C-alpha cells in the first residue's frame, strides 16, 4: 500500500510538472515516433462496401505497439522516484519489449516475468528482451500466461518494493495503475480525434479496438467518451468456443469479482476460483478486464463483442492483402469486427480501427494456423 501511495503522489506531481510533460512529449516524438498516422484504408473500404475505414497506426511506433507510450511515462516516473530496478509482466511480449527498451534507454535494471506458454508462442520477443539487456523469468504456474506472469511480478514487487518499480503494462491492478496507464495512452485518441477532424471534417460513427486488459482501447476511446454519437466498440478474444476455458470474453462469460487488486468482470467458477482462458493472441488471453471498461459497459457508453481465433486469423490475411499491413493477432480481433460491421454501415459513415501493434511477433503462430501453399 505504501508503494502505491508513493506512486500516486509522484504521478499527481508529475502530471502538473511542465518539465516532466515536456520531456515525455519529446521522447514520444523523437524516440517513439509520435504522432502515428491515421491512414485511410481505401481497398479495405471498397472490399467491405460500407463505412469508410481509417486505421490508427500504433503499429508503426518504436518496438511495434502502443505499449511504449506507457513505458516511457512510467520510466520517467521511476527516475523521479529514485528507484533503479524495474519489473514487468508480459503476455504477448510487446509490453516486455517496450519495458526492456525504456530500461535500456534510461539505464535501469530490468526483469520481465512471462508465462512459459507465452514464451513458447512469442519466442522472438523473448530474444528481443534479452538482446535489450533484460532478464526474462519464465512462470510455470497456472495457465502459464499473462495472469500468472502478473502474479509473479506482484510477488517480486512486495518482496523488493523498496528498490523496485512495478511497470504494469495494462489498465489493471490496484489504484493508481488503471488511471495512470490510461492517461499515458490517451494520446492515441487525442491524436486520432484531431486527425479525423482534419481529414474528414467530422467525427467517426464508431471506434473499434481490441481489449485484453484494455490499454490500447481505453487510450483511443477516452477522448471520444464525451462525443456521445461516437460508438465505442471493444473486441474481446472469443477464442475457440463459448465454454469457460475456451475464450477470454469477460463480458460474455464473466461476472464481477476481484483479481490482482481490481474489482471488475472476471472469468471464474461459482466458487470464485479464476478460470483458465484461451486465445490465439497472448495479449488478449487474460481472465479479467480493466475496471474502467466495466464501468463504460455498465453505463452503456461502450459495447463489447467477441471475435474468434479463426475470425482474427482471417482478418489478418485480409488486411495484409488489401492494405499491405500485417497486424498483431491482438489488433486483428479489431479488424475482424470491422469486417462484420462496416458492410452494415452507410458509405457516409466513418469508422476508426486501432491497429495497436504489428504482426512480426506473430509470424510463427500465423504460419502454424494459415495454410498459404
Amino acid at each position, binding site marked *: *500500500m*505504501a*508503494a502505491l501511495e508513493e506512486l500516486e503522489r509522484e504521478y499527481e506531481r508529475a502530471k502538473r510538472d511542465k518539465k516532466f510533460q515536456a520531456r515525455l512529449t519529446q521522447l514520444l516524438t523523437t524516440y517513439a515516433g509520435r504522432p502515428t498516422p491515421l491512414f485511410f484504408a481505401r481497398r479495405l473500404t471498397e472490399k467491405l462496401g460500407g463505412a469508410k475505414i481509417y486505421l490508427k497506426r500504433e503499429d508503426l511506433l518504436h518496438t511495434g505497439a502502443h505499449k511504449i507510450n506507457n513505458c516511457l511515462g512510467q520510466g520517467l516516473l521511476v527516475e523521479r522516484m529514485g528507484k533503479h530496478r524495474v519489473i514487468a509482466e508480459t503476455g504477448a511480449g510487446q509490453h516486455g519489449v517496450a519495458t526492456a527498451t525504456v530500461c535500456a534507454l534510461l539505464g535501469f535494471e530490468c526483469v520481465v516475468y512471462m508465462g512459459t506458454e507465452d514464451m513458447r508462442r512469442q519466442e522472438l520477443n523473448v530474444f528481443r528482451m534479452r538482446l535489450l539487456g533484460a532478464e526474462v523469468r519464465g512462470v510455470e*504456474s*497456472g495457465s502459464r500466461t499473462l*495472469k*500468472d506472469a502478473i*502474479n509473479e511480478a*506482484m*510477488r517480486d514487487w*512486495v*518482496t*523488493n*518494493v*523498496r528498490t523496485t518499480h512495478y511497470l504494469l503494462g495494462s489498465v489493471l491492478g490496484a489504484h493508481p495503475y488503471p488511471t495512470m496507464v490510461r492517461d499515458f495512452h490517451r494520446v492515441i485518441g487525442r491524436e486520432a480525434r484531431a486527425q479525423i477532424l482534419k481529414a474528414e471534417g467530422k467525427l467517426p460513427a464508431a471506434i473499434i479496438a481490441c481489449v485484453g486488459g484494455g490499454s490500447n482501447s481505453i487510450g483511443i476511446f477516452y477522448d471520444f467518451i464525451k462525443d456521445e454519437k461516437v460508438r465505442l466498440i471493444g473486441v474481446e478474444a472469443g477464442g475457440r468456443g463459448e465454454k469457460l476455458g475456451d475464450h477470454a470474453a469477460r463480458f460474455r462469460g464473466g461476472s*464481477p*469479482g*476481484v*483479481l*490482482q*487488486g481490481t474489482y471488475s468482470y*472476471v472469468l*471464474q467458477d*461459482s*466458487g*470464485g*476460483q*479464476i478460470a483458465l482462458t484461451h486465445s490465439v493472441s497472448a495479449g488478449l488471453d487474460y481472465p479479467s478486464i480493466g475496471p474502467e471498461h466495466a464501468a463504460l459497459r455498465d453505463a452503456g457508453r461502450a459495447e463489447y463483442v467477441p471475435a474468434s481465433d479463426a475470425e482474427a486469423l482471417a482478418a489478418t490475411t485480409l488486411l495484409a492483402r488489401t492494405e499491405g499491413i500485417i497486424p498483431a493477432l491482438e489488433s486483428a480481433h479489431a479488424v475482424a469486427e470491422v469486417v462484420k460491421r462496416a458492410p452494415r454501415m452507410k458509405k457516409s459513415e466513418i469508422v476508426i480501427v486501432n491497429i495497436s501493434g504489428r504482426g512480426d511477433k506473430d509470424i510463427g503462430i500465423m504460419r502454424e494456423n494459415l495454410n498459404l501453399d
Partner: protein
Amino acid sequence: MPLAFYKKPALVVYVTCGDPDLATTREIVLAAIEAGADVIELGVPFSDPVADGPVIQRASERALKHGTSLAQVLTLAAEVRVQAQSTGLIIFSYLNPILQMGMEKFCKVTRAAGVDGVLVTDLPVEEAGEYLRAMRKYDLAPVFLAAPTSPDGRLKRIAEASRGFVYAVSRTGVTGTRQELASDAKKLVKRLRRVTKLPIALGFGISTAEQFAEVGEFADAVVVGSAIVEHIERNRGREAAAVGEFVRTLLAGAQLSVAAR
C-alpha cells in the same frame, strides 16, 4: 473468547485446507491442537495466491485439483469446533471466493461454524468498510496484516480495525521459510506496540524451534505456515503425525530457551 493466547509465546498454525484432502486436513488440525497449537488458521485455497510463496502455491494447486471450496472449508471448521472448544479458529482467504459466496452469507455461515476470526489477505484496511460492518454484525474478529513498510499512520489504522490480534509480517515479501529473520521484524513489533494494546502475532518465514523462541521474546504469538505445509507435503500418508511432531518440536524449543534464561 478462544482467540486468546494462553502461552507465551503462543503458536498459530496455518494449513491449506484440502491438501491433500479435507479429511486429512481435519486430522492434521486436530493433531496440531493436541500438540499445543493455540490458534489454527484454516487456509482457503485460491487459484491465484499472489501473497504466497511456492510452498503454499503448490498446496493450493493440490487442494483445488479436487475442487476444495470455501463452503467445504467452513463445514470443516464446524467439525473442528465440535472437537476443540478452546482453540482459536481463523479463516484465512483471498477476497474473491468470499465475494462469490456473498459477504453477508459468508459471515453468517462462518459465525455459525464457531469460527472466531477472519483474515482476508488481499483486502487492505482502506477498502474494508463493508467487510468490517459485516464482521461486527456477526461478532467475528477481523485480522489484518501489518508490513514493515507500512507507515505509522497505516499501522494505527490496521490496529484500530483489528480484533483479537494484529498479524505482523516479519519482512517484505510473500509467505515462505527463510534462514534468517530480518531485523525488520523486531522494529515492526515495537512500532505496533506504540499504537495498540492487542497481542501481536508475527509470521512469514518462521520454520525452526530456534526462530520460534527468538520471535517469542518480542512477539506474543508466532505464526508458522509454510513450514507446516512443507511437512504435509513431505510426509505423504502420515501428515497428521508429522505435523504433531513438528509442533511439539517448536514448542519444546521455546521452553528450553525460556529455561536457559
